[in-house]
């Protein structure tokens, strides 16, 4: 069934994509069916899973490589499905009103469905490699979704930014997975967590995996892609960048933390990065006027919070993390939705130009205030329960844990401040940002169907806050699935304890920070770093492109002589390294073995040098002919009459062809531009090749250890080949296929020659080609 659900997403997504034009907004219904079916099915199994049942499925994929589709549904996966499929279904409903009859709605629907399927795969996968595949599928679909307005350069750049950062992190993670799988002897996550391997290599593997998780969950210093991704239409932001994709990193960390938190640098790294992200993201969320940017940095901050809770590997914190995971999805998705509604109706989401919302906006305001209150952890909302649990987890701990607690409280104070800032936008925008002019009043509110999904989620935040028993067992069991010692037992009222005092303190300080917003803004403007993460990304990308251009301009000069020099030089120099050992040296052979060699060698050398130095084409070609005929003589004295005959015939033909072509070309070698290879390197490469050939000839003469194979060929030529001329028998019989290849090459060359020679002249080209060269 798990596999069938994944397949359903794929089929529905592809169907919506292929029928995007005809289906229009109905593609959303088709696509939304997949997450709706998933959440319904999950709800029907919730009872059994919460009793401790684990649903597993395994389909063998590549048995030889031990690759299989391992799927596993436990209580923690169930919690994630509530986010992925539950909130997913509502996002589809919200998108129905948001996109209306927009042209791209079909494409969005298809891609959203495929994304939902990939994300479902991530939370169901019980195999590291399968998880990686689904993980990268979410990156790819998210790339397509962020860049859905593909005629906007800004959207394309943001999509690429997200893809580059998350997929590079994903590659690091893959490396970590492989190391982890090799060390543990299995790629099954449940088996690895049950029996965790250890060692230095595992420590390295975990750091690599964490890099992947940090990039995906937009942790500092990899966070800068998330604010950029806000160019996407709001339903996409609400789904990918609050509920689903950005939680993948947190999810993975949560899976591994109970088993690996004490291995290597895991705990200090995760807690350090998480706290930095929580506080830095919170500070940044106080600055932007764009409501989506505010939400984006708020999300980054909350993801840091989740990273700390779920990554620290302490049972209490894990339980708190599971609570916050759900609570965050419940308040962040509706916040994105209401901001999207304002943007959609008022065509702005900038605090400075935002209209005053009139009477038709009551439902939107209720949804916004409830969700913002849950984000600020105001009782009795779901976010308050989560924050209480988080404080409670660290209150009684060691000094180090108290330090973490201090960091969390600081981050939460900032959360309260930016939550109030967001809420003010729906109440009195003038309170947080001076208007550019008189603010218009927007009385006509959005349609009820548009608001319904956000209102439903906001209502859930309130309902779950008031009645913790509704979700206590889900969170409890999810935490227990990660760490058997963890248990949540949610309660609204624990009596007056340290956590409650801290909560009160947080609210008071946060409200104070918001009240002093003018001074805070001035201080931030003065102290804020001038270089943002996006600047760093831009600089890195620019440098990489620059480096690529530089490397290309060096290794790919585009000049044939340079390529030839590199190839021939390498061919001469690299084997020389082997020859330098001297083991091959058979000693100098006889100076001259045959008197007849002397004139032939002299002729060859003189002809070669003369051809190289000739200033006229004809002369050079004629000396080449001389060398060819000298070769004929050499073959004769060497006892190779066939070669001599062939060489003679070919040489004669060559000279004729040369003369036919050279007749057309200028008489002298004229130089139009500087030689690509200077004289000195040219002579050096030539000399290196010459020396190498001499060494090679002498080495080859001393290299024989066995009798030549040709002796057998000589014996078998007459009885088996029916030929007395052994060379001919070798060519047409023993190595007949070789000769067939040779004939093929000749035919191909002949066709080429005919085509080139008969091609017409382009009438528009005049011989003057210098104008186009410079």
């Amino acid at each position, binding site marked *: 069934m798990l596999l069938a659900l994944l397949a359903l997403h794929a089929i529905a997504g592809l169907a919506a994509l292929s029928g995007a034009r005809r289906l229009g907004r109905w593609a959303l219904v088709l696509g939304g069916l997949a997450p709706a079916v998933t959440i319904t099915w999950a709800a029907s199994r919730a009872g059994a899973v919460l009793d401790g049942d684990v649903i597993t499925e395994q389909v063998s994929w590549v048995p030889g490589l031990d690759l299989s589709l391992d799927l596993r549904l436990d209580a923690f996966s169930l919690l994630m499905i509530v986010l992925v499929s539950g909130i997913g279904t509502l996002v589809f409903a919200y998108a129905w009103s948001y996109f209306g009859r927009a042209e791209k709605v079909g494409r969005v629907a298809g891609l959203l469905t495929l994304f939902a399927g990939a994300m479902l795969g991530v939370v169901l996968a019980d195999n590291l490699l399968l998880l990686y595949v689904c993980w990268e599928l979410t990156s790819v679909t998210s790339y397509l979704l962020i860049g859905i307005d593909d005629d906007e350069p800004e959207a394309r750049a943001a999509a690429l930014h997200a893809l580059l950062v998350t997929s590079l992190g994903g590659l690091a993670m893959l490396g970590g997975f492989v190391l982890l799988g090799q060390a543990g002897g299995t790629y099954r996550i449940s088996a690895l967590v049950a029996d965790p391997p250890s060692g230095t290599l595992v420590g390295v593997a975990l750091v690599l995996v964490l890099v992947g998780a940090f990039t995906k969950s937009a942790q500092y210093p990899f966070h800068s892609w998330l604010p950029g991704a806000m160019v996407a239409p709001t339903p996409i932001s609400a789904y990918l960048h609050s509920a689903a994709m950005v939680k993948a990193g947190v999810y993975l960390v949560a899976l591994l933390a109970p088993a690996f938190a004490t291995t290597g640098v895991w705990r200090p790294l995760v807690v350090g990065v998480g706290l930095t992200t929580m506080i830095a993201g919170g500070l940044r969320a106080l600055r932007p006027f764009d409501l989506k940017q505010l939400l984006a940095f708020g999300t980054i901050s909350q993801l840091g919070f989740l990273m700390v809770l779920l990554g620290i590997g302490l049972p209490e914190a894990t339980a708190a993390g599971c609570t916050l995971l759900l609570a965050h999805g419940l308040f962040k998705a509706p916040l994105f939705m209401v901001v999207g509604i304002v943007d959609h109706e008022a065509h702005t989401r900038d605090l400075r130009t935002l209209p005053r919302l009139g009477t038709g906006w009551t439902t939107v305001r209720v949804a916004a205030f409830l969700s913002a209150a849950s984000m600020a952890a105001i009782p009795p909302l779901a976010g308050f329960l989560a924050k209480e649990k988080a404080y409670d987890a660290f209150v009684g701990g060691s000094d180090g844990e108290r330090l973490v607690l201090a960091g969390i409280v600081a981050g939460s104070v900032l959360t309260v401040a930016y939550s109030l800032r967001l809420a003010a936008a729906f109440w009195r925008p003038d309170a947080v940002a001076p208007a550019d002019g008189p603010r218009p009043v927007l009385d006509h509110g959005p349609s009820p169907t548009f608001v319904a999904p956000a209102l439903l989620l906001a209502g859930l935040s309130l309902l779950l806050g008031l009645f913790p028993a509704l979700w206590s067992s889900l969170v409890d069991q999810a935490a227990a699935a990660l760490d058997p010692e963890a248990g949540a037992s949610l309660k609204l009222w624990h009596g007056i304890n340290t956590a409650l005092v801290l909560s009160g303190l947080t609210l008071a300080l946060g409200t104070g920070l918001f009240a002093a917003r003018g001074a805070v803004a001035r201080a931030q403007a003065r102290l804020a770093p001038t270089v943002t993460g996006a600047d760093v990304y831009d600089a890195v990308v620019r440098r990489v*492109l620059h480096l690529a251009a530089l490397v290309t*301009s060096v290794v790919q000069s585009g000049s044939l002589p340079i390529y030839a020099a590199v190839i021939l030089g390498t061919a001469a120099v690299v084997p020389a390294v082997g020859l330098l050992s001297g083991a091959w040296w058979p000693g100098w052979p006889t100076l001259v073995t045959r008197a007849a060699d002397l004139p032939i060698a002299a002729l*060859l050398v003189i002809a070669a040098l003369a051809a190289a130095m000739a200033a006229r084409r004809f002369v050079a070609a004629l000396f080449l002919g001389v060398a060819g005929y000298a070769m004929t003589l050499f073959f004769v004295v060497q006892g190779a009459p066939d070669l001599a005959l062939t060489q003679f015939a070919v040489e004669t033909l060559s000279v004729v*062809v040369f003369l036919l072509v050279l007749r057309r070309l200028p008489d002298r*070698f004229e130089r139009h531009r500087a030689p690509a290879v200077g004289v000195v390197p*040219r002579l050096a490469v030539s000399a290196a090749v*010459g020396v190498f050939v001499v060494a090679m000839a002498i080495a080859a003469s001393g290299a024989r250890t066995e009798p030549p194979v040709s002796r057998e060929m000589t014996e078998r030529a007459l009885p088996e080949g029916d030929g007395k001329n052994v060379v001919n028998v070798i060519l047409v019989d023993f190595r007949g296929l070789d*000769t067939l290849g040779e004939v093929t090459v000749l035919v191909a060359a002949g066709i080429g020659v005919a085509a080139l020679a008969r091609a017409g002249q382009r009438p528009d*080209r005049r011989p003057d080609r210098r104008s186009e060269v410079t």
Partner: protein
Amino acid sequence: MSVLMAVTAGVLCATGTYLVLGRQLSRVIIGIAMLGHGVNVLLVLSGGDGGDPVLVGEDVTDFADPLPQALVLTAIVITFGVISFLLALAYRSWVVTADDEVEDDVEDRRIAREAEHLLDDRGDEGAER
């Protein structure tokens, strides 16, 4: 095998290389032919000092090695095919540009110019954001 013929092969290959590194296509072609000759000498030498033509049935015992000869025969013919094709290219080059000079690749030069350009105004764009 003699030092003399080894050095001859070396000289043929060296002059061939020298010619191949030039810009005029006709010189490159002559260089390739020269390289071909050098390699053929090398191949034949690897079969030993030679001897009588390998015609079985004749009353001789000191056969030359026939296998390198067969290889060289193939090489001669292939070299001829390559050279004819290159000559046709040279002819074509003359038809189009009235010369046979090998020009640099236009696209590669564009990239090289771009790299220089990037070197010149590095960092200017950062201020915009």
